[in-house]
């Protein structure tokens, strides 16, 4: 027999007020909340409208088609001062994405190394990791960005006295300048063969796994894949008559021309973000590893695994289940913290958007674009991490 909830409707009949009717009370309170929400939304919108009208401003995104008339330090896509505002925002978006994704990769690397170091039996190693975590995470990120920027810029000479590595790579306070590969006709074959190599290595890995499971025999799949990935495109280039040339940087007048440049602003921001976020990931990884029962390590040792193998094959896969959810938080934080780029002049979405806001006066529109973009980035990261988390979940057979 199932219990039915007691409905106090009978109370109303006995002269009690509607207040005692749980259903009605629930309905009314929800209606009130909904009404308040609708009202505040309306108030915000109408207030904005009135104020915009008062200032002879109109709301709309047409301004994105106007010429930007300003230049941007570094861009992944083609951009000039005659491009429009929309293009400038896109430049900022790609820069944000670039620094966030590279930051996430680097921070994860630092975090995993740090987390493992933190649990090392060697007091010097674990002590170093502990000092790193405690010091770096206690200092505000903005200060660290300034510090890295000064560290990147200060010791480096000007372009005329740049550190010169075989006339190929130059390091100066204008950044790291390296030759840029230029692919001619036929390079598409190299690309095609690279893709073939990647697919082949995927299958090779699966095959190696199966073979090991069946026979215990191990194939050096990693080395073989690497050889394929390097050799196949090279063969492709050779067959196509080597359609690859290098654009070497050279010093002309003030600066280097040609080549490709890694600007100091990007380097400083990347280092600051990943070293800072790395401290939190270190702690997450440490907690994750510690959450794996000690018996697992002992059992893998009993099976004859070396300590590195035990960590890689037994402990970390189990620890990942604990690590991934808080890791997602750190990735979101890193992406949002990348907006501090503005302090050192790296043209991310907030920096370029801010300039556009100032030049066009479209504050509300720009702020809306910012919010939508960062919301999408965050939701996208969350979705990816959730997917990864569900893949890494303990598979019950």
């Amino acid at each position: 027999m199932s219990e039915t909830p007691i409905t106090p409707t009978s109370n109303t009949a006995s002269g009690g007020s509607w207040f005692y009717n749980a259903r009605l009370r629930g309905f009314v309170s929800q209606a009130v909340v909904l009404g308040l929400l609708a009202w505040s939304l309306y108030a915000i919108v109408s207030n904005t409208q009135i104020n915009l009208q008062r200032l002879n401003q109109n709301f709309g995104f047409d301004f994105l088609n106007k010429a930007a008339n300003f230049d941007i330090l570094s861009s992944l896509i083609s951009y000039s001062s005659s491009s429009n505002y929309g293009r400038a925002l896109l430049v900022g978006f790609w820069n944000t994405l670039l620094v966030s994704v590279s930051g996430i990769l680097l921070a994860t690397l630092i975090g995993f190394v740090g987390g493992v170091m933190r649990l090392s039996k060697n007091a010097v190693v674990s002590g170093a990791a502990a000092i790193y975590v405690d010091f770096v995470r206690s200092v505000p990120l903005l200060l660290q960005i300034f510090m890295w920027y000064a560290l990147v810029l200060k010791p480096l000479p000007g372009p005329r006295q740049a550190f010169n590595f075989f006339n190929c790579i130059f390091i100066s306070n204008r950044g790291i300048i390296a030759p840029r590969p230029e692919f001619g006709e036929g390079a598409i074959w190299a690309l095609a063969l690279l893709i073939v190599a990647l697919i082949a290595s995927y299958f090779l890995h699966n095959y190696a796994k199966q073979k090991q499971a069946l026979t215990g025999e191990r194939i050096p799949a990693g080395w073989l894949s690497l050889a394929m990935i390097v050799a196949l495109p090279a063969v492709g280039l050779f067959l196509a008559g080597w359609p690859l040339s290098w654009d070497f940087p050279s010093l002309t007048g003030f600066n280097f021309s040609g080549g490709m440049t890694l600007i100091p602003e990007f380097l400083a921001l990347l280092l600051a973000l990943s070293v800072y976020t790395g401290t939190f990931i270190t702690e997450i990884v440490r907690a994750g590893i510690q959450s794996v029962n000690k018996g697992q390590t002992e059992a893998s040792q009993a099976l004859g695994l070396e300590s590195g193998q035990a960590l890689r094959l037994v402990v970390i896969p189990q620890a990942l289940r604990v690590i991934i959810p808080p890791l997602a938080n750190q990735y979101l934080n890193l992406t949002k913290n990348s907006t501090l780029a503005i302090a050192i002049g790296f043209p991310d979405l907030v920096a370029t958007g801010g300039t556009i806001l100032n030049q066009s006066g479209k504050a509300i529109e720009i702020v809306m674009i910012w919010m939508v973009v960062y919301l999408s980035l965050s939701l996208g990261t969350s979705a990816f991490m959730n997917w990864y988390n569900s893949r890494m979940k303990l598979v019950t057979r």
Partner: protein
Amino acid sequence: MLNALKATLAVSAAAMALAASTAQAGTLDDVKARGQLICGSNPSLLGFGVPDDQGKWTGFDVDYCRAIAAAVLGDANKVKFVPLSAKERFTALQSSTIDVLARNSTWTMSRDTQLGLTFAGVNYYDGQGFLVPKKLGVKSAMELKGATVCVQSGTTTELNLADFFKANKMDYKVVAFEKNEEVLKAYQEGRCDVYSTDQSGLYAERLGFTNPDEHIVLPEIISKEPLGPVVRQNDAQWFNIVKWVSYSLIVAEEFGVTSANVDDMRKSTNPEIQRMLSAKVTGSDGKDADNYFGKGMGLGPDWAYSAIKQVGNYGEIFERNVGQKTKLKIARGKNALWSNGGLQYAPPIR
């Protein structure tokens, strides 16, 4: 139940109607009620707007705010200065965070017509220039091909720069920072070959360098930068006040009225001085008590008198903040009175 819902909706609707009909008071009334003028200022431009170590603000633009406060409230010290970056300034004015913006802002058509703001005249005629380290050996802006230039983002500087290099078919790199301090630091650390801003700013900032003599200002001026105070577009009365307080400072210089002699000048027989200082109103007869200039914009008879008495005329403000006796040593140049071959010209007070 339905009744309760209806009641809720009715209350909400009433509240909505209330929110929608918020009345807009004039800026003058706001300032008077507050007893204080809120002025958007540059926090870090020597000679134009900068607080000292005691928090006392000084500078050319700062004195304009003081003059407005003196004219409106009778006391040049009743000003609150809000430090603003180039990027924040117009939004701060649009959103009524400040009453007036006096922050070396360039009057351009788009700013005047598209931002809901209005420039109330020009208080300083400037132009954009370039500062380079001497050791680069550059003598002219036309030799800057391939240079890296540090600028402040969200400024006309940034736009003029793009135009200049495009027009002269030279490539360049721009590093734009939000805060001027960062621009200067980056330039001094060698991140850039060139620092570009209004020429007055170049001279001012160079003074703060460790070795000012190692940097030179290139001779070219690549833009017109008429700087002036800015107000919101919808308040004609406030616009008039800011505009005419500025003009009165120029008129005062033109007629030799200074902070030192303004009391004597009230007895002057020159009709324009009499009109500016409302001499007849506060004079012994008091006949024309309701017929003074300044009444039309809601100010008391002492509007110009207080501004000149407490802050000084245009020339005094110029010399005190940026003139020959200051570290900046900027010549009057284009900012001389029209009668001396400059561009500073005020319509008559009549």
